[in-house]
């Protein structure tokens, strides 16, 4: 188990992002699967939303928080198992890499609808 400032900060941010994600994900899910329920989403409908900076901001924040919460959560699971220092560093590197790739690809998807 790790101790210290980094660990406490990770715990705290995990709680805060979790609470914000709770509202964000509920909204995201209800919007697509309940309020606007229908089969399939068309490209034009998606573009109608993603043409506004407000929605792009909302999705970027949601994406970033989801990735951070997920990767930090996985790190929390790994740090429960007293792994060797080197293994832990490799896992941390992979988590950063995956998070970075997801954020970049997700971000490009969000701005892709505008072109």
């Amino acid at each position, binding site marked *: 188990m790790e101790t210290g400032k980094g660990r406490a900060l990770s715990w705290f941010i995990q709680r805060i992002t979790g609470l914000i994600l709770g509202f964000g994900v509920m909204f995201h899910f209800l919007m697509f*699967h309940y309020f606007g329920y229908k089969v399939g*989403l068309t490209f034009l409908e998606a573009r109608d939303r993603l043409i506004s900076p407000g929605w792009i901001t909302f999705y970027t924040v949601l994406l970033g928080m989801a990735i951070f919460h997920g990767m930090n959560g996985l790190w929390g*699971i790994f740090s429960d198992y007293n792994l060797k220092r080197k293994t832990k560093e490799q896992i941390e590197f992979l988590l950063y890499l995956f998070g970075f790739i997801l954020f970049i*690809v997700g971000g490009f998807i969000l701005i892709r609808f505008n072109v």
Partner: protein
Amino acid sequence: MENTKFMNKAKTYLNDLRLNITTGTISHVTHRVTGIAFVIFLFLHIFTLSSVFRGPEAFEDALLVYDSPLGRSLEFALMFAVSIHLINGVRITIIDFLNLSQVHKRYFWISFIVFSIIVILSVAVFFRIF
């Protein structure tokens, strides 16, 4: 060598769980399993949406893949998993921030009741009862 070590660890872990089935272990395990599933889902979600790079038609085709009985069921499973993780996460946060670990079992049952209500409502919505 490493593999057997890992298997032994996993066996110990599962055995410990089997011997300690309490509200705490149940919420701990479900929280982890659903959490890992979400990270996998996040990759799938972004992979699906990345079809937009291949044009509007490819985007709509990719989304229609999930308009099948399997896709609908997975969506439903995802909804349940999100509810479990969300309600349990709120429970953990309340207990952590307000120092309520003495009464965590009561909070488990409260969150279980909230989850049951969500399940009943969403089953009703799924089968178009209202």
